[in-house]
């Protein structure tokens, strides 16, 4: 199962089957993580039209609370996640109502700066309460011990294996997407949400509580974020006050390439970003892993050049 290719610039072991499969798995698993964050970005953007820079920190804060409930208080991890999710949804909606709404009408940039301020508050707050050192053990929503994996090909290094954690992340993304679609397409609430996402002014005229839908966007994002936080902490095996910052950036990138207002785009974008991150250093000799982020950004630039609204984003119609 070894193919040796001697093309200049291409890594010669790239087409080895186990390596190819393992890279694919890594890329899709990382991609699922980014897709989770991209979903939160999209849920807020669809109705409100702005980004929430504090999303990662909200998720991080929630994950620390899960840590306290699970590791220090002994609660079951999924129960803890559920509690934190509900709490986050309430807090997210409250942030939107109290802090963001008064600003939205006054300026476009102001809400963004406000979320930046929130970022610093939550980041500093977590570091103050729980310290700056990484925390162990990390709450485990999925079986995450050393041998909690499925070994598929083991006759050469690296083994081709899939961890239960990775399967769990994929399952979570799938379940969330299904639930979101059910909510958006089958419930009245979802209908109202989609109406506001499509045209807020018209929705207001027909009597849809637009402000509530804005809050719903934040609530959904915060809820997804809290689940994402716990899963990501386990998947990446780090729980400290900075662990979400990098993931959020990848989430923005994924939402961008997929289209900021498309759920499908968030998932596809996330997977794409994950795959580019893995495959560009694996494929090319002149790209090291430290440049994989730059490669992701180049790919985004190229995609946007051909589709300026992202892969699945909606085109804005401008009237003069």
């Amino acid at each position, binding site marked *: 199962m070894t193919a040796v290719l001697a093309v200049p610039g291409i890594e010669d*072991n790239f087409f*080895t089957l186990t*390596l190819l499969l*393992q*890279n694919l798995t*890594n*890329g899709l*698993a*990382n991609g699922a993580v980014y897709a989770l964050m991209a979903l939160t970005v999209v849920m807020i953007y669809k109705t409100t039209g702005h980004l929430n820079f504090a999303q990662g920190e909200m998720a991080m804060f929630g994950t620390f609370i899960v840590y306290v409930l699970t590791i220090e208080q002994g609660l079951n991890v999924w129960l803890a996640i559920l509690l934190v999710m509900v709490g986050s949804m309430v807090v997210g909606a409250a942030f939107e109502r109290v802090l963001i709404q008064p600003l939205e009408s006054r300026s476009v940039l102001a809400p963004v700066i406000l979320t930046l301020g929130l970022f610093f508050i939550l980041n*500093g707050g977590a*570091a103050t309460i729980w*310290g*700056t*050192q*990484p925390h*162990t*053990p*990390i709450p485990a929503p999925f079986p995450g*011990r*050393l041998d909690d*994996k499925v*070994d598929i090909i*083991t006759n*050469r*290094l*690296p*083994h081709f*294996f899939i*961890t239960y954690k990775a399967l769990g992340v994929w399952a979570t993304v799938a379940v969330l997407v299904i639930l979101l679609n059910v909510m958006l397409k089958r419930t009245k609430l979802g209908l109202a949400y989609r109406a506001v996402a499509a045209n807020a002014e018209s929705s207001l005229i027909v009597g849809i509580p637009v402000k509530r839908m804005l809050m719903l966007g934040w609530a959904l994002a915060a809820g997804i974020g809290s689940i994402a936080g716990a899963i990501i902490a386990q*998947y*990446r*095996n*780090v729980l*400290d*006050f*900075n662990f979400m*910052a*990098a993931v959020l*950036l*990848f989430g923005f990138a994924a939402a961008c390439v997929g289209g900021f207002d498309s759920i499908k785009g968030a998932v596809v974008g996330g997977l794409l970003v994950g795959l580019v*991150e*893995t495959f560009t*250093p*694996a494929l090319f000799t002149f790209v*090291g*892993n*430290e440049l*994989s*982020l730059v490669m992701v950004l180049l790919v985004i630039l190229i995609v946007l050049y051909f589709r300026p609204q992202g892969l699945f984003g909606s085109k804005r119609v401008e009237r003069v």
Partner: protein
Amino acid sequence: MNQHSARIRRGLAAALCLSLIAAACGSDDDKAADTTAAAAPTTAAATATTTAETEATTAETTAETTEATEATTAETTEATTESTAEETTAPETTEASGETFQVPTDNCPADTTQPLADGAPIKIGFIGPQTGPLAAFGVIGQGMKVYFDKINKEDGGVDGHPLELVTKDDAYDPAKSAPAVQEALEGDKIFASVFQVGTPNVAGTRQLYADACVPQALVGTGFPAWGDPAHFPWTSGGIPSYTVEARVWVEFIKQKFPDAKKVAILTFNNDFGKTYKTTLDKALPDAGYEIVADVAHEATSDLSNEVTQLLAGGPDVIIGGTTSTFCTNLITLARQGGFTGPIINSYTCQSIQQFMVPAGEAAANVYTLVVAKDPSDPAYADDEGVKQYLEDVATYGPGIDSKVGNVFTGYNAAFMTVDALTRAAKMEGGLTRANLMNAFWSYNIVGPIAIGGIAHVDGITDAYISEFGVMSEYDPAGQTYKVKDGVEIDVEGQGGVYSG
């Protein structure tokens, strides 16, 4: 090294020491066992403060070290005597120079050679990241404060001067270090800065210290350029050089895994990891190894891609030139990927509680250059130095987690600082900044939590203070390092001085 030459060295050392004691006896009443109150509890080797004490104690430690050695790869060297009050007349041994280092003060402001006013506090500056992604290193200051508070409470400070810690934040950004250092120098008027963190931060500010003639001592980066007393006498290093460590790894692989041919390297893509990479990229091929994967990772990575690439090369040994939770993840992911061979870990992640225990059973067949006794290691539960450290943290730093590696790093740095201050106070001219820097360049002691060896510099032939460690295997079951079965590495004196 072989036993024969070890015995010869012991004999020579003993002879040298006896003759020096004879020479020194007339002027000084200090005896070998006499240690100043400021010196913290140590292991069997005593701390050295003035001339007369040095000889007997270092002879002891040298002897102990050679006995304990099974298969050291480097020679042990004599400790040179440190003398500021008098010149030694003993014959020169092969490595030692009899001279003592004097920092040049011609271009310095006048107060460099003026002693600190009676009772005035000694302000020690700690400039490092207190905010930002690397804020975890900021707790080094907490460890330092614990020790300083202890000395203030128990001994009234050093030479009647209370110790005061001045912390400045630079968020690991060299552009922020420069104003922070300027403020510490001109505003707070620190007496010395200790354990500044970050290679670019130290490099970017050492001229400021040189111009102000303030010690930038015991810097907390292992970049080899700090051992340059000829050009930058006001800057000295405080932790083992990453270059030396990388070379030690290569030697260790040669010794311990003679069948290994292919090595895969993972390094952190910053100043710290790059030093490892540059050294390994040369040292490994020079020793005949094939580097099958040379991967650098960013702080944003979770290492899954990088480890896959490492394993794709089919290595016999994996070297991890990285730090913090990345070490843990390297070990876990490599084992999950099917790698069963040895993994070599940077000494910066030797902390058992923080980085090794979370890796669980994966951390078998993992080797680290152990340089300090980990307070969470059960093997040292009865060690005097460790017990004292734990007691001090409980007394003077309630609420601080004593198991955190950075805390005991700070504690150790403070210990070394107090030792230097104490020796400086006894030098001719009293406690001046110039004498303090001279003291920083003439260590000859064992720290309370150092694993062994002698912390020795002389500023002339030996500019690297920390050149001892034990390459030990980690035992996941016992959650301890098997230091007794380890390979002692003592390259004391071999670092020489920085040559470009």
